[in-house]
């Protein structure tokens, strides 16, 4: 007689404590005694922080009205933001002329969107237009003085508009310069190499503030007495020089990652140095460093806020100005929350976009 099971026993369901909500809770929140402790403490802290915040920001808050008299209770006063909204976006750009800024941004958005289509005809030319022709057209559109457009000096540009202009123009100027510097640093020519190294190390070694100070205090001294350099242009020069050094290091990383065989293959085909760089090496190097360039761009976007210190009214500068308005004193938290949210949306969006690009250009170079 043998007690042998002839057919398979059906699989038993997992214990009830391991599946469903209970199982999830046990695995993720209460797996050990100290995890349970962490969970309880965290929950308590969240309970102390989140409901009061929602109460302040939404439930007790005031949304409609035109003056601070509308803000009576203890909640947030979003009326202040609403009242100041045009300034947050356009700075002191005259209200009657703000359509020009709107047109400028209405043009750039579809252009950028077109560039992100995976396959589109004439992408190269659209790209060249966006990077090199559009900024010039936009400058004349915004500043006017031509074709019957009212002249708006750059001192009146401000708010988010100025932040975006600084960031976009900064990257457009810094990218080609950075690529050249990276090539210079990797060059076999000793003088070219040392000039690039000194340039890169000097700009990377000092804080952006001192570069901005230099551009605002020293640039007028460096120029012949009759040359007047616009304040915005000075800031742009500082940002572009500073950022190109960072871009150069990012691109150098990409160049170093290209296998030697690629350079040799280009030489074997008899390509000249510019051609082998432009057709073989750079496309691969730039593809590898896309995440790095995006990170640099995010840093640039955040760093544009430093122009406040030399007196330009970008988004943060306008926020500071709004908070010092005697009519609206005491709403610092609302102001900073709003400005911070705008910066956050742009930076977070960019970082997600960087991830997306990384996946799209992923052609098996990562192992």
């Amino acid at each position, binding site marked *: 007689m043998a007690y042998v099971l002839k057919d398979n026993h059906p699989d038993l369901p997992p214990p009830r404590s391991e599946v469903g909500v209970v199982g999830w809770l046990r695995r993720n*929140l209460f797996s050990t005694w100290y995890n349970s402790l962490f969970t309880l403490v965290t929950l308590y802290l969240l309970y102390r922080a989140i409901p009061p915040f929602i109460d302040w920001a939404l439930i007790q808050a005031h949304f409609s009205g035109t003056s601070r008299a509308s803000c009576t209770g203890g909640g947030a006063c979003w009326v202040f933001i609403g009242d100041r909204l045009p300034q947050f976006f356009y700075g002191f750009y005259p209200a009657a002329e703000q359509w020009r800024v709107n047109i400028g941004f209405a043009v750039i958005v579809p252009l950028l969107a077109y560039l992100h289509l995976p396959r589109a005809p004439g992408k190269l030319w659209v790209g060249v237009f966006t990077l090199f022709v559009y900024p010039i057209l936009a400058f004349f559109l915004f500043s006017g003085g031509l074709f019957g457009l009212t002249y708006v000096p750059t001192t009146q540009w401000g708010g988010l508009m100025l932040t975006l202009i600084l960031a976009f123009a900064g990257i457009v100027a810094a990218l080609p310069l950075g690529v050249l510097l990276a090539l210079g640093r990797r060059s076999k020519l000793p003088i*070219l190499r040392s000039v690039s190294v000194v340039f890169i190390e000097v700009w990377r070694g000092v*804080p952006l503030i001192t570069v901005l100070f230099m551009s605002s*205090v020293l640039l007028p001294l460096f*120029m012949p007495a009759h040359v007047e350099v616009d304040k915005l242009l000075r800031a742009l020069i500082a940002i572009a020089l500073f950022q190109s050094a960072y871009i150069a290091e990012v691109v150098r990383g990409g160049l170093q990652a290209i296998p030697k065989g690629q350079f040799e293959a280009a030489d074997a085909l008899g390509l000249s140095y510019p051609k082998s760089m432009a057709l073989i090496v750079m496309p691969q190097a730039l593809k590898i460093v896309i995440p790095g360039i995006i990170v640099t761009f995010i840093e640039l976007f*955040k760093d544009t806020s430093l122009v406040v*210190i030399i007196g330009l009214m970008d988004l943060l500068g306008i926020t500071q100005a709004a908070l010092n308005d005697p009519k609206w004193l005491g709403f610092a938290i609302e102001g*900073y929350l709003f400005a911070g949210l705008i910066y956050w949306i742009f930076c977070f969006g960019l970082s997600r976009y960087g991830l997306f690009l990384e996946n799209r250009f992923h052609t098996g170079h990562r192992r």
Partner: protein
Amino acid sequence: MSNHQASATPWWLNQRIRGWIAQLLVIAFVAGFFTFVAYNTQVNMQARGISNSLSFFGQEAGFSVIQSLIPYSSSSTYGRVFLVGLLNTLFVSVIGIIFASLLGLVIGIARLSSNWLLARLAGAFIETFRNIPLLLQIFFFYFAVMQVLPTARQSFDLGGLFFFNNRGVYLPRPVPEPAFWAVVIAFVVAIGGVIWLRRWARRRQEETGQPFPVFWGGFGLIIGLPLIVFFLAGMPLGWSVPQLRGFNFQGGLVAIPEFTALLLALTIYTAASIAEIVRSGILSVSHGQTEAARSLGLPNQRVLQLVVLPQALRVIIPPVTSQYLNLTKNSSLATAIGYPDLVSVFAGTALNQTGQAVVIIGITMGVYLTISLSISLLMNVYNQRVRLVER
């Protein structure tokens, strides 16, 4: 390419000659640029009556500074102003680096925690503070937090020892008595003892195979020895606790609002970046390494100490160092809220008073450049030592 062919190519296609032409052009451009700038600067400075000398360093500055680590009064010289600013920059940077490392380490580990809530919270912290400009955070802590704290009379009170009000943060200050030097000596002796213990433990392990718990031994020595001496010497340490006298606090240690706001913002902003670096460093050590170490029979602590940490640190330390460097450079944002750092008092107030733009900006940039280059130099040495040696 043979010699025959090389001579057949026209000279303007010769690589070497092209290289030299390119380099000569670069030299000409750089030299021309600097001549242009130097000439203009000289003309402009003469026109504005600015002399280009360092003599202003000996002149009386005539303004006061709200925080200085060395004696300073408004009759001190500009040279003294420079030193005060430099020390303040280094002070806030060093404290910021310590706090940011600790906070970053905790948050980086929390993000890897198996506790879902904790990991999510750490992720939210990182994404929030990394994506908002540092200057905005400094302004927030200064104008929206420090300045809305209550007045000195109604300050937040933490156990009667710590006080928070709109004039700053007040903490108890240790006051060493004369006999305290004995404790300091004991501490120095303990450090020497730990170094000796390490050597001895290593030698013993090499000879007999017996490991010695160096960490706990050293820990006990460094904490224990000074503590024993401290009690033997009759506890020669008093505390100066801040006390409200009239309208303000007396005694204790005070962190002025400018310092507190700057330190908070620098710490939080940098900690968010360090947390990500720590996380990627820990993740970079492949699980196979841990398994291999376990299968050799190493206990958990030794796995961490001998296998995981050395490999993770190789990934973590270079980017963390550049974060330290960034923090030091970012401390220059102090000028926006008036904390008297180098940029604020020297490249700000001193420059406005003397008009010596070229010299002052040059010196300021030189100081930061020196700090940066020395740190990169140290980092390169470190990298050479720990990098993977392949074929």
